[in-house]
């Protein structure tokens, strides 16, 4: 029967990307609401979507807003600082072979180490403010950016080594005019991954109870068993994560327009 519908609405094919997800959303919401009402599921196990929305709109200003912005602040600052740091590091490493040889394993460590684990230590040194968290987010994200950027720079350089030599340009000239622009896809891949890891680091520490921010609200409301608020905060977190990711992808499309 669905096929009959499809054939009739073939003209609307190009809106599939919007229609199908919307249908899924509507189905999930109505099913959820329905099941909670019919099976009489207590609010302490699973709240109905209507309750969640209600909680979101009524309680936002009072209890959630400051935390929302703290999370945003930590995430955005950490992430934005990480980008130039990572790229600079990658540039230096790719141009100075000795540095590269010495530091490669450390870069590996940098990337694979869950820096979350050193947060308690850093908090012992720097206190309970936002600084330690921003530091952790920044270091995590810049690791990703650096790793991918190094790979990108080296790939471009290897491919075009003869061209570079024939151009006779100075090392850094060649870098900025040629290597860097050509390696942008790799750099942006690193930035995208860095974005994901930054969000992970930011919220990971908040959930664990190290300070304020929307993750800490999730923990708090969970222990208080105010589930509608928990879900509301989860939704807001998703909003933050998705928006940052979309913005990054959007900028990527604009900068590397030729790939699209």
């Amino acid at each position, binding site marked *: 029967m669905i096929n009959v519908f499809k054939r009739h609405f073939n003209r609307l094919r190009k809106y599939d990307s919007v229609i199908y997800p919307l249908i899924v959303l509507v189905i999930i919401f109505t099913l959820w609401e329905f099941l909670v009402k019919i099976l009489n599921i207590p609010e302490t196990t699973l709240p109905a979507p209507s309750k969640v929305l209600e909680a979101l709109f009524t309680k936002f200003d009072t209890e959630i807003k400051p935390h929302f912005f703290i999370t945003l602040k930590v995430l955005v600052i950490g992430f934005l600082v990480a980008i130039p740091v990572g790229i600079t590091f990658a540039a230096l490493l790719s141009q100075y072979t000795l540095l590269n040889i010495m530091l490669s394993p450390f870069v590996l460590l940098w990337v*694979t180490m869950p820096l979350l684990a050193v947060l308690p230590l850093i908090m012992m040194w720097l206190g309970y403010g936002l600084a330690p968290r921003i530091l952790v987010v920044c270091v995590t994200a810049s690791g990703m950016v650096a790793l991918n950027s190094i790979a990108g720079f080296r790939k471009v350089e290897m491919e075009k080594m003869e061209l570079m030599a024939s151009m006779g340009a100075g090392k850094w000239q060649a870098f900025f005019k040629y290597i860097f622009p050509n390696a942008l896809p790799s750099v942006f891949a690193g930035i995208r991954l860095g974005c994901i890891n930054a969000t992970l680091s930011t919220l990971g520490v908040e959930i664990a109870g190290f300070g304020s921010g929307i993750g800490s609200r999730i923990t708090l409301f*969970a222990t208080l068993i105010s589930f509608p608020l928990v879900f509301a905060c989860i939704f807001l*977190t998703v909003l933050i994560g998705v928006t940052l990711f979309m913005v990054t992808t959007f900028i990527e499309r604009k900068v590397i327009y030729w790939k699209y």
Partner: protein
Amino acid sequence: MKEQRQVNWLNFIAPIALLVILLVGAEWYIVTNDIPRWMIASPSAIIKELISSFSSDIFPNFAITLGEILTGYLIAVPLGVLIAILLTQFYTFGKAFAPYTIAVISTPLVILVPLLTIWLGLGFRVKVIAVVLQSFTIVMMNCTTGFNNIDPLKMELMKTINASRWQKLKYVILPSSLPNIFNGMRMSAISASTAAIATEFYSSTEGLGAMILHSSAYLNIERMFASIVMVAVTGITLYILPSIIEKLVIRWKI
């Protein structure tokens, strides 16, 4: 030829030399400047702690954390591949869930941990689920890239032999995407370890994360550093594992 051998030797020695210099330097600085014990531990003290408490505390906790991560990881990888197959090979499914996969990839699923803990209680299960949730998304993302970028010529070949959907997967799509799958495994290893530690911070009495928290509460700096070192070891092991498996599986020249 001689040049190559020299470079290889240097590749090996240089980072080790750097590490040794840093460790010795730190040791000297900490000892001579009499840095207070609660701030930082000297390398020698850390090593002493590692050795003395290894079998009693350090290794068991390490094993627990590693166990959580590996179990979650082993579930997450096939799950990620499977969902990527569904998303890329079945039009309806792909179109319907595309925006939700973006949401799932860009949001750290650790935020579900408090909820999961309330529903499922503390313990191994919750941690494994947290790891699974966090890592399958990255595997899925990399697999999707791979599955969507197959050489069109090879798909033409499949058409000429009337290959079914499953034959296309088996003969072209999956083998062609193996590098992407392994890359996804590498990347998700990082998220996996982070998720495990975060969950342990949240609610645990065992594992490396818990050990870090406890040693910080009791100001046992040496143990804290020792735990951090073990966390680093965990991270690196997980990252290298896919590369090793990749060398064994991909025996052909790409």
